[in-house]
């Protein structure tokens, strides 16, 4: 166990250092680097959305608004308050904290309002947020905020992504994580076994908002501008698509969804509008054959991979045996 930890830690440090080097000497084309950063940023966002929409099982549409909070607050801080690039990680963190407060706010209606009604409230939050940002002249109004220092690079995205993954993993194994899964199964039953449902919802919404806010901050510092319209209906649906394509209640699924969708949209760019048609059809097909997403409810671990291949082997074995002797032991 101890050595495993050391190995993975060394690996992380090495990868991060390599990424810093790659970024500094521009060893990889800027376009590919940009795509990789998008994938990382969206993966952090999808992890955040997955906490509420997947693990907690509440259908929320608030992520675009929360992302706007994270993006604007961290951008404003690094533009006006802590302008030195040294503070960049801190600024992103602070953006996440502001988003976390917004998450607490959204969690309050969820105590009482359920299902689609809650979905509308969270959608309302997103749209109110967008409207508010459009009307504040100080943050650029509808034109958006410009000249944000473009501090985001591939290494920082990687670091934040690793932090997000580790945090989510630890959270799911913690006391609140188990309470979250209980809530997802059955809220009343969870309450009966003395799960503090309100507190759990607040914690999950807050944590989810923190991650989404971090991704928003990274996105703003990557593009070096941000605009209220970025965080509208399109972001709401794209976030949902990435979560459900990859798989709900799964870290692997979150990474898979963010990666697949971003690659699809970017790599098939020459196809123009066709790529959206292909993407939509792909999503429908995935939903029909795997209703909880490609990796829904499972994780990619060594044990799972091994058992997956074993299952395939067994399946083939039973097939061949059947065809030869028509024996009845396919259960093995």
């Amino acid at each position, binding site marked *: 166990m101890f050595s495993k930890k050391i190995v993975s830690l060394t690996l992380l440090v090495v990868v991060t250092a390599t990424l810093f080097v790659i970024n500094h000497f521009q060893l990889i084309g800027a376009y590919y680097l940009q795509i990789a950063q998008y994938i990382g940023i969206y993966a952090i966002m999808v992890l955040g959305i997955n906490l509420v*929409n997947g693990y907690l099982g509440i*259908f929320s549409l608030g992520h675009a608004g929360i992302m706007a909070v994270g993006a604007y607050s961290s951008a404003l801080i690094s533009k006006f308050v802590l302008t030195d690039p040294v503070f960049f990680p801190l600024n992103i963190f602070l953006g996440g904290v502001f988003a976390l407060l917004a998450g607490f706010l959204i969690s309050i*209606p969820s105590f*009482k*309002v*359920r299902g*689609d*009604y809650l*979905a*509308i*409230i969270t*959608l*309302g*939050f997103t*749209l*109110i947020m*967008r*409207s*508010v940002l*459009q*009307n504040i002249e100080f943050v650029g109004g509808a034109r958006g905020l410009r000249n944000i220092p473009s501090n985001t690079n591939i290494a920082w995205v990687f670091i934040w992504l690793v932090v997000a993954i580790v945090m989510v993993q630890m959270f799911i194994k913690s006391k609140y994580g188990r309470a979250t899964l209980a809530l997802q199964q*059955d*809220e*009343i*039953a969870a309450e*009966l076994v003395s799960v503090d449902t309100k507190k759990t919802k607040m914690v999950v919404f807050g944590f989810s908002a923190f991650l989404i806010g971090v991704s928003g901050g990274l996105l703003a510092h990557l593009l070096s501008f941000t605009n209220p319209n970025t965080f509208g*209906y399109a972001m709401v*649906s794209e976030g*949902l*698509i990435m979560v*459900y394509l990859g798989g*709900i209640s799964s870290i692997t699924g979150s990474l898979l969804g963010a990666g697949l969708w971003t690659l699809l949209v970017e790599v098939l760019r020459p196809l*123009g*509008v*066709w790529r*959206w*048609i292909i*993407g*939509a*059809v792909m*999503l*429908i097909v995935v*939903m*029909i054959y795997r*209703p*909880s997403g490609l990796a829904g409810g499972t994780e990619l671990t060594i044990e799972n991979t091994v058992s997956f291949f074993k299952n395939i082997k067994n399946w083939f074995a039973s097939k061949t045996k059947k065809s030869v002797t028509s024996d009845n032991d396919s259960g093995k």
Partner: protein
Amino acid sequence: MDMFLQQALNLLQLGSIYALLAIGFSIVYGIVRLVNFAHGDIFMVATYAFFFLSTWLLTYTNSLYLVLAITLVLVAAAVSFLAVGIERVAYKPLRSAPKVSVVVTSLAVGLLLQHMVLQFIGPTPRRVPRLVPDIKFQVGTVNIELYQIVIIAVALFIMLLLSLFIMKTKTGIAMRAAAQDSTAASLMGISTDYIISVAFVVGATVASIGAGLYGMAYPIFDPYIGQMINWWSFTAAVLGGIGDFKGAVLGGFLLAAVMVISPMVLPVSSYRDIVAFGILILILLIKPSGLLGKKIIQKV
């Protein structure tokens, strides 16, 4: 006072359209428990069908009302086929799947429709031909346009027809039964698949008529119109209590009231969305299942 009456007329006009759209949302939801996020894009497809058919028909005849009637019927029929087709291909395999999977599928269907139109018809905004003669009335000091009367009258007529259909006909009674308890209904010999198809046909028909009426008041449209309509009609349906016919009508008019009144009262018109959604959130916090929605009691 004149201003007030004029705005009241606008409110009725906008409210009738929102109400029709919310009804479509609500009827499908009532039967399948599916928030059909493709509803707005079905509306968008209907607008395009309306545009092409009416422009084509106008080259043959000058009788506006004839064109209007034929277009409404044909577009409703065509869009109903589309909606039932979508249900069969995309939603039916997911009957036993978790609810959110179907919601996401409907989101994908909406995306598909929108981008199909973008690909094959193009993003340029178009203008629906005016199918109602340009006649103005002067009642007191209020200006009334003929198309406004047509919108309100047609919408009210459709609502009346629909409520008669739901309350009196055999199919309507079967629909209400299925909405209450689809398992029990199917044990009574009601074909659930048939009822679901009927719900989608009704939803699509109402959306097509809504599209026709919307085009009279706001003739410019593009492929992105569906998204906006989608969220507004969803909001109206939820506001009134989703799944409830009367609730959808109430929600539609209430939403229109907020949209019409808030720019009059507010200093800056761009605060409209903030106020509209602020009121909505407030109402839902006080009545968590919409204005007329039934409270769902959860059982363990």
